[in-house]
């Protein structure tokens, strides 16, 4: 992995330049093409941006993200790169505008190295649902890197970027971060603009950040957050000051909520073992643990899938072959261009979710499914409020298992959906959540532990996460 602070130190010492670092990274990406983590790489543009960063460093007027090599998930709209969402539907699509977060990356001097592979339209937990081939786990090519932000996680884990952007609708940043042994952060809903993020489930989607460590994550967050007038769901809050407050919880007495045994017990033995070790470390360091009860925990996944698929069925209606993207060939007069285009352009998992979402919204089912799910969502939100009135944060595993083998869950949607068990509730409640590396399991794969806190307390979350990461590393 490549630490941004190390690169900055080296550049400051004069032992290297951002241009050289960028060239090294481009070479490394080339050498490990088999990972299939990038869908497009911007060689020339990255070098130009690196040179500009070097110039500003030389003039001692660096921007916040100068020299930071960043990979961007391929569902964020970019003028300079295709934006495919790993779908045949958008195989040839070339946006005419930049997502707000991409604009802000550029405005703060980041070097955008390329666009990363993913599960098609961010639907999946394994990286297997890409129209352009699966992304491999950097440690073992037989295993999944997690998803849906597979390529962005792998890019950071493999040292091919200092940080990357993903999107997290039900765990799509935190889960691959856990599988790949890096930090994966989903900010509070509304803290990073969704303008230009190709929507999967609008009320749950949030742009997320991958990095090897918390300081890099905080640096990114401070630069990218802040109200965006182009996103009506953007929180009207000033940018975070996470770097400035990173040590605020370093020595504070902390009360951390943990889930009851019966919720945790279904985790794999490897994950359980690491989880228990972590609890010991926390207690050894004087942190108070508090058993917390979250209502409706067996409704988390159903609630999530009802809301996410319903919104997705509507969000993906725009892919009809009329104005952009793939258009099917018409063979006979009865063919409907939209049906043909959509049937040929979308992969199976996407179609499955559109179908489910259409069903739950269709006449006679709205109250039974969608409305009920929104009501359950309120219960979950209120439950979290209650926890955070007693504790500073909630601590829980990110995933029930470590990385699994390709194909293992592909034909069992419910098993695949259950791997999101610990992550979806944060999206439902809109609260910030982060996965931090907690060491390796007995099987050699990384395990991630998750912290969640109350809505818009992103600085607190990052500060506590910073302290925990240091505890777990030592």
């Amino acid at each position, binding site marked *: 992995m490549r630490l941004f602070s190390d690169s900055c130190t080296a550049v400051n010492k004069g032992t290297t330049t951002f241009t050289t670092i960028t060239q090294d990274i481009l070479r490394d990406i080339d050498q490990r093409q088999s990972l299939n983590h990038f869908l497009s790489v911007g060689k020339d543009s990255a070098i130009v941006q690196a040179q500009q960063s070097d110039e500003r460093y030389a003039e001692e007027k660096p921007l916040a993200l100068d020299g930071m090599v960043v990979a961007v998930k391929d569902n964020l709209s970019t003028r300079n790169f295709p934006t495919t969402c790993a779908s045949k539907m958008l195989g040839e699509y070339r946006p005419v505008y930049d997502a707000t977060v991409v604009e802000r990356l550029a405005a703060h001097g980041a070097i955008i190295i390329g666009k990363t592979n993913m599960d098609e339209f961010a639907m999946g937990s394994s990286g297997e649902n890409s129209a352009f081939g699966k992304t491999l786990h950097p440690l073992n090519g037989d295993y999944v890197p997690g998803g849906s932000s597979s390529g962005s996680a792998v890019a950071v884990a493999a040292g091919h970027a200092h940080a990357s952007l993903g999107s997290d609708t039900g765990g799509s940043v935190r889960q691959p971060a856990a599988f790949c042994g890096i930090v994966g952060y989903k900010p509070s809903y509304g803290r990073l603009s969704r303008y230009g993020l190709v929507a999967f489930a609008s009320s749950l989607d949030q742009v997320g950040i991958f990095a090897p460590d918390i300081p890099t994550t905080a640096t990114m967050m401070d630069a990218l957050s802040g109200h965006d007038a182009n996103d009506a769901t953007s929180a009207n809050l000033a940018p975070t000051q996470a770097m400035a407050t990173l040590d605020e919880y370093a020595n504070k007495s902390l009360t951390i909520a943990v889930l009851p045994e019966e919720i945790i017990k279904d985790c794999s033995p490897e994950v359980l073992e690491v989880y228990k070790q972590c609890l010991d470390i926390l207690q050894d360091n004087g942190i108070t643990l508090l058993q917390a009860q979250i209502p409706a925990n067996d409704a988390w996944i159903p609630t999530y899938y009802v809301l996410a698929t319903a919104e997705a069925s509507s969000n993906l209606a725009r892919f009809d072959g009329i104005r952009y993207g793939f258009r099917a060939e018409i063979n006979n007069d009865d063919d409907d261009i939209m049906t043909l285009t959509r049937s040929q352009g979308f992969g199976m998992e996407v179609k499955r979710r559109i179908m489910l979402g*259409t069903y739950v*919204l269709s006449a006679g089912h709205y109250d039974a499914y969608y409305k009920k799910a929104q009501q359950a969502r309120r219960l979950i939100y209120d439950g979290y409020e209650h926890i955070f009135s007693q504790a500073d944060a909630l601590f829980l595993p990110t995933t029930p298992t470590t990385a699994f083998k390709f194909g293992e869950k592909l034909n069992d949607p419910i098993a695949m959906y259950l791997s999101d068990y610990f992550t979806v509730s944060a999206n439902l409640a809109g609260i910030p959540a982060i996965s931090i590396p907690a060491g390796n399991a007995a099987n050699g794969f990384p395990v991630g532990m998750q912290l969640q806190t109350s809505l818009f307390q992103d600085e607190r979350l990052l500060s506590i996460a910073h302290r925990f990461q240091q505890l777990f590393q030592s």
Partner: protein
Amino acid sequence: MKGLYATAVLRKFALLCHAKGRIFYEFTSKFTMIENYEAIIGLEVHAQLLTATKAFCRCSTSYSLSPNAHTCPVCLGLPGALPVLNSKVVDYAVKMGLATHCSIREYSVFSRKNYFYADLPKGYQISQYEDPICHHGYIDIEVGEESATKRIGITRIHMEEDSGKSIHDVDIDTLVDLNRSGVPLIEIVSGPDMRTAREAYQYLNQIRQIVMYLGICDGNLEEGSLRCDANISVRKKGATEFGTKIEIKNLNSFRNVEKAIEYEIKRQVEAVESGQILMQETRMWDAGTHQTKSMRSKEFAHDYRYFPEPDLAGVSVSEAMIAQIRQSMPELPLARKQRFVSEYGLPWYDAGILTETQSLGTYFEQCCQSLGEQTKERYKLVSNWIMTEVLRYLSEKGIGIEQFPVSPSHIAELVELFAAELISSKIAKDIFPDVIGGESPKSVVERKGLLQISDESIILAVVEKILAEQFENVAKYREGKKNLFGHFVSSTLKELGGKANPRIVTKLLQERLQ
């Protein structure tokens, strides 16, 4: 303003047609027993709002010659683009709600209406479904003769966005233009309170006038800035259950609204009478064949899958905002029309013409204010002058009253000149071009020496001269050829250069010829 003059003419024409329609109606009713039925009619009116920008993006709503020139990621439905609500849309919707006595909802939300169509870029329309911003209001419409009114309920008014346009007849393929995509609309849904095509016409006309008075829509049906769909069912008189509701689309002119509804009522009654069971469906009015036609059944197998729009927070309307909007509300057309009748003593017909647009009514009132003598007779003279000479001029020039070059005080002056018999109405008309040129009526009259001669001694001298010259005619007149009287009048007037007061000429001639 050409439209307005045309409306005045058309109205008379429509009244005529209506009368003919009634005869036709009565004729056919013998066969269909139509008089045993009543129609239940509700209208859904879409009004395109006169905002500078679209509802959810900052693209201009102005007309563009080039297709797809007023588009952006949002109204093209590009992946990742998000809507942001134009606050003026809320203002305008509330304005219409207040004008139609609606309750304004403190908090309302947008919903997505999901359906696929080539000119619907996102595959859904952002609209309001549950809890629209305005609800439960009413308007009064004119029915029958003179000032009788009927109250029509307004079920709801909601905000939504327009779709783009599909053009089917230029290429072998369909062509899509998204300049209109995202233009804000309000949909005004009436209660099922109308019973005749005429009432539906009056309702639509009233809605049109209100949106124009409020300045929130240009009210143009032909160009589609005002669109109307009708829901129609029929039932036996006295029945309490509604019949099968049928929706009629494509009513893109006032005449079509009335004709289509009349046609549809007759069609439904005939169908019911012949034992058919009507199916709920959507029909299109075909203005060419004067018939409604069933649209393909698939089109109305609707399942719009409405759900709250997650990309937009709800819309809050505060008491303060309502108070502020209420203050900016103009007097509404029907109230103004009623006031013109009571305050100026105008006939109902005149008041209707003068309040057709807000600016014409204002012009009329300004003229009246400039009158030296404030009497109902003078107001009526002003009304006559505006309805004939002024509207004719505007119609010929194709301009509005806003562009009319004559100041209200000059119109008042002109009216007063002939009211005081200082000039004849013929001279008033003759000098109108000079007045339009900018000169004051008094100055034209003086400059051209056109002041009317009312001095009886001068006129009497001429009368005696004429009668002496035409002694043969005088003899014939006395023998009974009474129609020669007009000849004496015109001869006298001619002798006096057209400036003599015709009333006095007539009086003196009558005296002399007795």
